[in-house]
């Protein structure tokens, strides 16, 4: 009976790892060359203030309501490190794909995703808005709802990926069109809370430090590069 020694195992693991490193780049040339790999690295954006946001009139308009620190402050990444630029790009793409227009509005008076979302919905011509915080927590809101109600809430920022952000944009646009979308499928991770609760709190505190209760919402122009 040959004994399986620790050294033999180490040797085997090293060999397998070496092979994986050899084959990995060759196996997925498409993924390596893509401009926007699934983690959204490489997407950049510039945000420019346009002026005080007024209530829209176009029924195709869906507002994306940004919390104070989203996009151009702090690390400009969500709690799991997805660049804000990639998140916003997917949300706006989801809205556009359904034939609606996304309008980005920055809110200063609150860092709460529900209140920002509801205030955004009241500005949207369609009455539908997506509220989003810098840590990535997202809500689809409607103007006739109370702030703490929602059409769809995505409370677990750590499990939201770019595909989900695209679906959130798409569903918001479908509500705006008066359709009956199936709610976006959400992943659930019991470990998300213990793992991220403290860092989520830090995100929220830092976002809240940018809150200015006297400041009105501002229309912003977003350019991707």
């Amino acid at each position, binding site marked *: 009976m040959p004994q399986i020694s620790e050294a033999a195992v180490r040797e085997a693991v090293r060999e397998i790892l070496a092979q994986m490193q050899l084959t990995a780049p060759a196996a997925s040339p*498409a*993924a390596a060359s*893509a*401009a*926007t790999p699934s983690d959204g690295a490489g997407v950049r954006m510039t945000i420019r203030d346009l002026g005080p946001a007024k209530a829209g009139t176009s029924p195709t308009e869906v507002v994306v309501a940004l919390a104070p620190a989203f996009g151009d402050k702090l690390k400009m990444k969500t709690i799991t490190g997805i660049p804000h630029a990639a998140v916003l790009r997917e949300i706006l*793409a989801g809205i*556009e*794909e*359904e*034939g609606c227009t996304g309008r980005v509005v920055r809110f200063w008076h609150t860092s709460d995703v529900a209140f920002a979302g509801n205030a955004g919905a009241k500005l949207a011509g369609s009455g539908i808005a997506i509220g989003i915080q810098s840590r990535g927590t997202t809500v689809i809101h*409607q103007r*006739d*709802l*109370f702030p703490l*109600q*929602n*059409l769809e809430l995505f409370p677990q920022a750590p499990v939201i990926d770019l595909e989900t952000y*695209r679906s959130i944009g*798409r569903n918001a646009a479908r*509500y705006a069109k*008066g*359709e*009956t*979308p*199936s709610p976006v499928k959400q992943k659930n991770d019991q470990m998300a809370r213990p793992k991220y609760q403290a860092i989520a709190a830090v995100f929220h505190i830092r976002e809240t430090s940018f809150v200015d209760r006297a400041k009105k919402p501002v229309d912003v122009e977003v350019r991707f590069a």
Partner: protein
Amino acid sequence: MKIAGVDIGNSTTEVALADVAVAGAPPRFLASSRVSTTGIKGTVANIPGVRRALEAAVERAGLKISDIDLVLLNEATPVIGDIAMETITETIITESSMIGHNPNSPGGLGIGVGETVRVGDLDIVAPGRAVIVVIPRSHDFERAASAIGAALGRGVDVQGAIVQGDDGVLIANRLSKVLPIVDEVHLIDQVPLGMLAAVEVADHGQSIQQLSNPYGIATLFQLTSQETAMIIPIAKALIGLRSAVVVRTPAGDVQTRRIPAGSLRLIGQHRTVVAPMDGGADAIMDALAQAAPLQDVAGEPGTNVGGMVERVRHTMSGVTGKPANTIAIRDVLAVDCLVPQRVAGGLAQEFSMENAVGLAAMVNTDKLLMEQLASALHREIGVPVELGGVEANMAILGTLTTPGIDVPLAILDLGAGSTDAAILQRGQPVRSMHLAGAGDMVTMLIQRELDLPGAPESDVAEQIKRHPLAKVESLFHIRHEDNSVRFFKEPLDPSLFGRVALITRDGLTPIPTHHPIDRIRTVRREAKRRVFVRNALRALSAVAPGGNIRALQFVAVVGGSGLDFEVARMLTDILAPHGIVIGTANIRGELGPINAVATGLVLSWVERATTGGGNG
């Protein structure tokens, strides 16, 4: 003395509690109750339900079960129904020659013809060549659009695109030229490359014209007359869609195949008729008419329908404790329907509406079981239990308490498992008829045609059957299925926003489906028409004198389905022109269509007690 009439039905158990002060005096009804039946009717599994129903009734009357002097049990109609469905056609696409689906948002507009080229190979295509670009998900919409833009700039004749992701509109919005773009093609790797293909996208609210027309495809691909004859199935499969792709491959084809579903052998008293399942419901019902009166039904062994018939027999044998080969199927109802099925070989998870046949079967059971049930019930509650009489006679007696009704009277009991009719004419015994197919079959048709989750996980189809629909258009108003609008002062629950909802007694209940309200309504009404209305006519003509429906005077709908919000009106529409008074019964002038049998049991006992010299 206190008497309780108990009616155990397929889905509910009903009780009428009455006080008979002196023999011969009309009974004074104290209370009624209605609970769900436990187990299959006519078996000892019913006892918990009976007990609950009795408890509910005595509680309403302020009594205890021990106060009851006699329980009367109906001799339940000895029929049990079962249902099943089989699809009889399927669509198969070979060599990925076609993509025909309705993505939520295809891009662009128009029709394009060219050779299929992967987007990565676009920069080596010679200028002037007509191409259809195939774009996998790894190519983001910006990148795909700029690649196509560059190719167009070089003079490549880009005619259209096939996209894996949901990017059609995004790409179209970024191009200077309007191109048809079909998106959400999940298995994009299987699109044949280097082949001539045509892509068509229709405008909003319209369907494609060219690819659903055989001559249109022939024009695009320059086909000969023989080749055109070959592509008819493709054109047919694409009718009514908003976007489609057809690829010309050497042996590509779309077939609508009939599944060998087997045949039913209908064994009648005088002759036996064989009906193939794939002939559809009409062929089966024609064969049934030829074989009548039916003695038994057999399915072709080794086929779907054979399995289906055996399953019914097996269930019934388990219930009655009789060997399966002695169980005889006494009636079947076949209904044609269209159910969505995944297309075999499809690249975009296409569904096509396939023909299916729903089958309800009815089995005669034993009277013996009711006696077992009665003695078991007696042991359980400690009150004398008697078998009170045949269900149909009791139902007629109970229905006669409806104001404004008279003999000759026909009743129609649209139950869950069977449709029953009975007629009472002056000086003649009651004649009755039991047919397969009722409420459960309607539920199954709704569930399958709308592709809803089925029992036991979900009862949404059952709910759709029972309640009218509305669309929640804003948080402050809904639009009913008849297009009327209702406003609310208080905002509705956000979970209702934008949804199709059912108007139930507890308020609005959203239903988890993407079907528009019109489609749900049509499917619901069609299912009821094909089962309830058809069976009502079948049953009434079977009991009517000389088989002539016009000879009937009064027809009353009783039973749980009489509570349905539209069936009685549908029946009135059909029968009123024959000069028949048809409506929903109103038992004892207050209970509506329910409790007919339970009430009849009490009345019948009182009648017998009077004529028989008061042996009670």
